[in-house]
């Protein structure tokens, strides 16, 4: 186990499916060098096939006795989608703007489609997904080279690009299919939780740039932090498919909010909810019942009394307070390792070991 674990909570009630996270990640890491087809961060519409296609059916993870399960390496064309390109340079010659590969599948192909009968009971919601930086990573266990590791300081899971041989067992082993093969360098790559940003005081691109303000980042052992409170105090943030046995460190506030259904005449069915509980139970386990109960009770309390710490946290008054990156902790490690990681931002530095965010001087704009 790593000494400490950095984690993320995503609030599915607030997710608007805009994919600013996806694109922020893309420009930060995956628009180049063989990563073009990868989405370290993606947002999928549920119910839907997800990304890569039907990932929940592709195996990996562990069974109850802790044995790694068989898995499938997805196919570029059929499962990930080919990152097609365009003839932009031909527009000046009066051409039709066309993809160079006929698009038949992509990472967001079934966006907003949902399921059910319009308008009575159809529904959908969004699930943003990054690497779960699991405490028991399927990818790590599957690697025959032992070339996947967890960073001691924050539990970030990385592929050792020095030693990786590109065998791709990791892809089969990850039940979330959040590790990818880079054909250009013949090695696996994956979400790195933007650790180079975090070390310098900047939250991960997907989280800092999330305009729905749905993502909290902090250490699980930071009792003052929202992540700790949502996961451990209120127990309203749950891991996705924890039944895969990898102990994920990304947590979700389940979607309590959906409009009521209509009956055949178009009357509102009071107290109904479009999102079936059995679907939520599949995704977030039996704990989802208690989590939903707590969330609803706190929302009711807020409506009636104007008070609720849980609602205060989820509302997130100050964007910068959503991230507690514990800069002093990182600086002390850097110092030990003889690294110079001068912080570039002082807004997100607080944490268990960093009570004062103004301690560090950062470069100003002038």
């Amino acid at each position, binding site marked *: 186990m790593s000494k400490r674990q950095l984690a993320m909570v995503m609030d599915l009630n607030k997710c608007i499916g805009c994919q600013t996270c996806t694109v922020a990640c893309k420009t930060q890491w995956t628009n180049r060098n063989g990563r073009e087809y990868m989405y370290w961060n993606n947002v999928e519409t549920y119910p839907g096939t997800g990304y890569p296609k039907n990932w929940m059916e592709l195996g990996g993870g562990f069974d109850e006795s802790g044995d790694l399960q068989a898995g499938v390496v997805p196919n570029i064309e059929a499962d990930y989608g080919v990152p097609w390109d365009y003839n*932009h340079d031909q*527009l*000046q010659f009066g051409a039709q703007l066309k993809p160079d590969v006929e698009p038949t599948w992509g990472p967001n192909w079934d966006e907003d489609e949902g399921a059910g009968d319009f308008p009575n009971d159809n529904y*959908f919601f969004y699930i943003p997904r990054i690497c779960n930086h699991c405490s028991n990573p399927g990818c790590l266990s599957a690697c025959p080279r032992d*070339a996947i590791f967890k*960073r001691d300081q924050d539990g970030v899971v990385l592929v050792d690009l020095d030693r990786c041989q590109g065998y791709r067992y990791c892809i089969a082993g990850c039940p979330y299919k959040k590790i990818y093969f880079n*054909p250009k360098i013949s090695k696996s790559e994956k979400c790195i939780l933007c650790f180079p940003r975090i070390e310098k005081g900047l939250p991960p691109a997907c989280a800092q740039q999330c305009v729905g303000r749905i993502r909290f980042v902090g250490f699980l052992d930071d009792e003052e932090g929202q992540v700790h409170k949502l996961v451990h105090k209120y127990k309203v943030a749950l891991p996705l498919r924890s039944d895969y046995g990898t102990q994920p460190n990304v947590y979700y506030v389940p979607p309590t909010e959906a409009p009521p259904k209509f009956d055949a005449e178009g009357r509102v069915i009071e107290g109904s909810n479009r999102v079936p509980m059995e679907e939520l139970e599949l995704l977030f386990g039996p704990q989802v019942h208690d989590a939903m109960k707590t969330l609803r009770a706190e929302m009711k309390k807020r409506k009636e009394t104007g008070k609720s710490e849980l609602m205060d946290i989820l509302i997130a008054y100050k964007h*910068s307070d959503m991230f507690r990156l514990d800069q002093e902790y990182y600086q002390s490690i850097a110092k030990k390792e003889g690294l110079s990681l001068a912080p570039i931002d002082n807004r997100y530095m607080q944490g268990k070991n960093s009570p004062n965010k103004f301690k560090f001087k950062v470069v*100003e704009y002038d």
Partner: protein
Amino acid sequence: MTQNMKRRDFLKFSGVTAALVASQGSLFAKTGVMKVENGKDNYPNTTYTEEMYRNEFDFTRGKKEETGFAYHCVNCQGNCAWEVWSHNGVVTRENQSARYPSINAKIPDFNPRGCNKGVQHSQIMYEKDRILYPMKRVGERGEGKWKRISWDEAATEVAEKIFDVMTDPERGPDKLMVHAGTGLLTEGRRGAPLRFSTQLGAVRIYPASYLGDMFSGAAIAYGEGNVGGTYDFMYNVDTSIFWGGNPSVSRIPDAHFVWEGKYNGAKVIIITPEFNASAKSADLWIPIKAGSDNILAMSVINVILNEKLYKPGFMKIFTDLPFLVRLDNRKLLRRSDMEHAKNEEEEEKFHEEFYAMNSRTGKPTLMPGTEGSEHHTLRLDEFGIDPELEGEWSVKTIDGEVKVTTVFEMLKKSAANFAPEKTKDITGVHPDVVRELAYDIAKPKVVAITTGFSLNKYFNGVMAIWNIASICGLTGRMGPYGGLNTENEFSLSGLGALSGFSGKYAPRFGSGFVGEFVFGDGMKTFDRYFSDEDVRRAQNGMSKKDYMEIVQKLLEEGKNGKGNNESHHGNVVKPWWQPDTAIIVADSKFRRNKGSDYREAFLKKTNFFCYVDFRMSEAAVYADLLLPAKSHYEVYDIRTSPGYHRFTNLAKPIANMKPVGEAMDEWSMFALIAKKLEEVANRPENISKAKVKDLKKYAREGYHDLANFYKEFTNTDEESEAAAEPYLGTDKMAVEAALEKCEQYAPWTMEKMYKAGGFLQLNEKAGKTSPLYSDRPFFTFEDHLYKFERLETLSGRQTFYVDHPMFIKLGAATNTGMEGIRPQGNRYPFVLMTPHARWSIHSNYKQSRILQRLQRGVPYVQVNRMVAKKKGVEDGDTIRIFNSLGEFYAMAKVSSSCPPDGLVMEHGWEPYMYKFKKGHNEVVPTALNLLEMADGWGHLKFGGLWDGNQYAYDGAIDFEKADV
């Protein structure tokens, strides 16, 4: 690791991946043997990988002190502060600045703002559709044959064309159009084409109108289209209604306030025909039938009236509901009906003074605060007035006894026809749901009804917004109690210094929706497409023949601004001109305009078409001359408008920016053309023609002085120098001038904005009809509610009654419901809805490969799952969508979120993205609404407030699986 032995078994490859794996395994063994106990702890080889990613991050971040700032000033109105990161003069990526200060610790802040489009501008600014150099067409229009020319040649050619058209005795300034589209909405750069246009007296049209984004219904009600608040207002409301709006898709930077407001106790109601990203989290989603919004609103009014949910105390003071209406001619009772005026001036005033029945005296009494009244307050108490809302009386006018009643009675009569049980089949909304909606609006303390831009896209959309405004008026919604939220706009004074000339020249505004209708021969399409039955349904029984005659007559009166030029009491008709020379900036007009014939008609009528943009839009493809503009990260600029928040953002290029081709900012570009124009005008053979005559309305001295053009453009002429006007001529100078001249920007400077993180906070003077408090969200009309100030309407109050003859003729003198003009019946049973897009801002960013990969890569349209099954259409099939006007092809996206009687397609696709380059407007007809054509009444006189809308959803269509 007990799992190892199973590896071979569990590793299965699907498809072609298997072939790749065998060949690559042993190529990259580099490191020597390393003993790894357990990768979860104390991994011995972390540094190699960590350093690689750290270096990569450092590369994208670049040096902090080289950071640029920008926003994306296309027509999304979001306006978000972004850091622009760079490496060695090349932009790498963007990251929100996210430094807006919190105004109140108990209200969420505005950070980080931004969206999926803005976050990838860095990726498209170097795309291969950039226009890099000035290009001159050498083949046929649209053929794609170009010759690269120098800036000097290009500017000279444009200047000569301008000189020719201006000085041709047969043509003149009104044959020239210099127009900036909505691809460039800023207070800095946009000023350049506007200034240039005004200085020439060239024709300009209102973008909001031709886009169908004008809040004409709000203008009727409030004398102001932009009403509502900053988006943080949504956090503290009790009910938050989005009527025809989908904030999670089309207000991405601000949507969080809606959902945070929900956590704070708000009930969120979404009224849209389709199930969407906002509906999915709402407390109530009302799946309304497309285009019936104005009728649903009438049903809500019906419930409010029948169940007495209205607020008489508010209505008496702040609305025209107590005003008296003559029953003989349905006109408002005016002072001119009761008294003879002594002179013409008094006559005019008497015509704008109105009565109510005073319950304290039992007599009709003149109401203070109306346009013609000498009293400019609404404090009825001071005048001893308590007006009756209900009743019928007989009053003695100069023409004898007439029966009168109140506007409120007229409204009740009109609303009686719209009981929820009666409208159920038209709106598709169950009466119980209508009642729930009415109660959720009327009962709580604070309610905001945000109207989406889709409401104006239907014929009679003007009624939808007016009716919703009236719901707010009946329930006392104003100021802190909420009300209609179209789009708040802050007041910015002094920016006329950039685009204007202190009265020396004034812009020649033409009507947007009429101008484009005429340009595209819209009448032909109208006549071809709509039946007599369609027109009668939508225009209160008026025949198609009568309708067309009326429209023709109004068009004739508005031609070349004639009707308005001859009028003594302000504008009376929609003016339009037919230019033959056009300089268009950032406006993909061949995509936007409806009907399949627009482009052809435009090109036929236009002798010379110069287009300015940074990318090849559909308009660029057909231009005669292309001028390369800089894009958002390469310029100095500034932007506030409209008013979703209280911040003004700065654009400042990254340090040592490497130029992209020969792109030029708009100020430098137009200054160059101005310079050439001055040179051309001063040529010996031209100098005698250089003073171009124009009406004094447009040129104070009666002429435009081309021989002094550059000096006037840059404020280096004698008059401007004497007046110490700011020098102009580059983007940076424009920003400096804006900061100096606009009082709401004080005391900020560019340096301070940069240091703050690329923005400034507006000062208290920015609030238009309410104060802009330092610690509270903004919402309009507090001055009205608390200080009893009059509204800028004819009555000085919220308007429920318009007695313009056209409104009376159409049965719409007060709020009513009217069906759309879209043909009905089984032949073309579907409505094509093309709402604002998640993935583009109109056509901007539609070509982005990064964004397209998150869509379908080609134009796609949502089809209801059941309907698709019936039609034998499968997801991914190409379908042909058609009606009698035309056809286009798109990929079917089979969805449970799409209504069975419609197809939903995000708009903005350039025609060149479709198969056979036929865009979706091929099947969209265009029509002019007579209520919006009506003009010259009270506050409804042609201008930025009162133009009209070009509609987008009036085509009925069918579709089939295509075999192409």
